[in-house]
């Protein structure tokens, strides 16, 4: 409801009462208030329980941390894979293409290099607010995205009907497993439509090259500095870019935190992104949760079909 309060009463008390009652009305009419409250609390407590993230200070220790947007963890990527992998790189490339000062470009080049470096990475995806379960769609909230080198990916999503849906690409063929069965395989990318085009904002992530060109002209770097994750921790390379106008399709704000030494993105946030079929802006957060080596065949269908030992969402970490 961005069009709620476009003008203010002249009197300060009236302004306050206007905004105060507005907030009460929003709460009173929010049928999912309880659900959202629980999500907010759980999300906050989850962050607080992360080791080393937030430690209470006994007395007057200042908790000074720049106030700002999002709060959660990091992100990742893969270049050649169509949607899922594209998402990761898109965010990083945005900054390389839009920020002109040389130090920033050099640093962002490191980030891109890190994303393409051989190795395995796993990212957890959070969508806020998530799709209501009643819609029965396979969404992205609580999904994980596993990436290998610059050429393989595995997206694991919760299936509202039970179990998981797997979308993968092993560098040769893409595939989908749904209901424990291989639903589709395809040489190259695109098996199952990958589903991401159903849920990702408009066309931003579905076609890498035009997207990058578009972002290069349509986003502005607002911050490039060292900053910890909102939950705390050591300083990270931090980039915040905002959409230049409402005419641009894609999230309003994109924010990246990356390791200062390796350049590996720890978190990427797509903020105020609109999904296809929904007018409600969402925030997608990609958090780096692991760089452990995954099994050799992890990006093929075999470990994920029903009855196979590896059918669980991921190896124990």
């Amino acid at each position, binding site marked *: 409801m*961005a*069009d*709620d*309060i*476009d003008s*203010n*009463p002249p009197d*300060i*008390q009236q*302004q*306050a*009462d*206007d*905004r*105060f*009652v*507005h*907030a*009460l*009305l*929003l*709460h*009173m*009419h929010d049928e999912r*208030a309880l659900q959202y*409250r629980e999500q*907010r*609390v759980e*999300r*906050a*407590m989850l962050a*607080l*329980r992360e080791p080393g*993230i*937030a430690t*209470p*200070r006994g*007395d*007057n*220790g*200042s*908790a000074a*941390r*720049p*106030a*700002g*947007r*999002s*709060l*959660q963890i990091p992100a990742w990527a893969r270049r050649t894979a169509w949607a899922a992998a594209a998402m990761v790189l898109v965010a990083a490339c945005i900054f390389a293409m839009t920020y002109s000062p040389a130090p920033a470009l050099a640093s962002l080049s490191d980030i891109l290099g890190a994303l393409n470096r051989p190795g395995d990475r796993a990212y957890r995806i959070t969508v806020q*607010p998530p799709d209501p379960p009643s819609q029965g769609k396979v969404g992205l909230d609580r999904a994980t995205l596993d990436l290998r080198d610059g050429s393989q990916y595995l997206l694991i999503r919760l299936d509202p009907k039970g179990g998981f849906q797997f979308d993968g690409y092993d560098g040769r063929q893409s595939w989908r497993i749904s209901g424990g069965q291989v639903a589709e395989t395809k040489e190259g990318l695109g098996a199952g439509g990958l589903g991401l085009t159903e849920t990702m904002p408009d066309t931003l992530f579905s076609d890498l090259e035009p997207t990058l060109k578009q972002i290069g002209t349509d986003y502005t770097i*607002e911050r490039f500095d060292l900053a910890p994750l*909102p*939950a*705390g921790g050591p300083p990270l390379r931090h980039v915040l870019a905002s959409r230049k106008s409402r005419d641009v399709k894609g999230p309003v704000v994109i924010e990246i935190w990356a390791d200062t030494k390796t350049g590996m993105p720890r978190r990427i946030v797509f*903020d*105020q992104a609109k999904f296809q079929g929904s007018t409600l*802006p*969402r*925030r997608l957060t990609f958090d780096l949760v692991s760089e452990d080596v995954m099994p050799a065949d992890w990006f093929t269908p075999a470990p994920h079909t029903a009855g196979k030992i590896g059918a669980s969402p991921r190896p124990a970490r």
Partner: protein
Amino acid sequence: MDDEDAGSLTGQSSRPIEPLALFEVLVRENADSLTAFLRAGVEDQAAVDDLFQETMLIAWRKIGEYDRVRPFGAWLRGIARNLILAHYRKSAREIPFSSDQVLDYIDGRMAQIGRKSGDTFDEKITALRDCIERLEPMYREPIELHYGQQKTTEWIAQQSATTRDAIQKRLQRARLQLAQCLQRKAVLARTG
């Protein structure tokens, strides 16, 4: 427990309570009022979620500074207030109200709500429903359409054969009438 209840961070039972678990209880009890406070200060829902979590993180870090004599909800709002102002500074967006005092005043309103009887935030603001019912139709209908059915002011204006600006003004007058109604019902303190 009252929303503004300070609670105890040490626990009174013989079995020690994990501080973080107790913190979670206090957070949960004050989550609705904190969210309402953030919504009053920030219109972007994503920013509300962010600021909520940041408030929690800072509160936990600074829990040693918390004065147990003060209501916990008020303490959280104090943190949230600073984060709201920092949010606007950081994003270079224009603060949508004329003075920081507006937030202080809203904080006072939230404290008044917190002192009302009721176990939950919803129970404390039940009087608002009656106030809505008492609005004249020309004010009640846009409120019900906009907040109850999530219709945009543009949509309401088209249906009413009027302008969006007129609907926004009508909504604003309706909200101020609701505030006055809550004052008459002694839910809120009267203003000069």
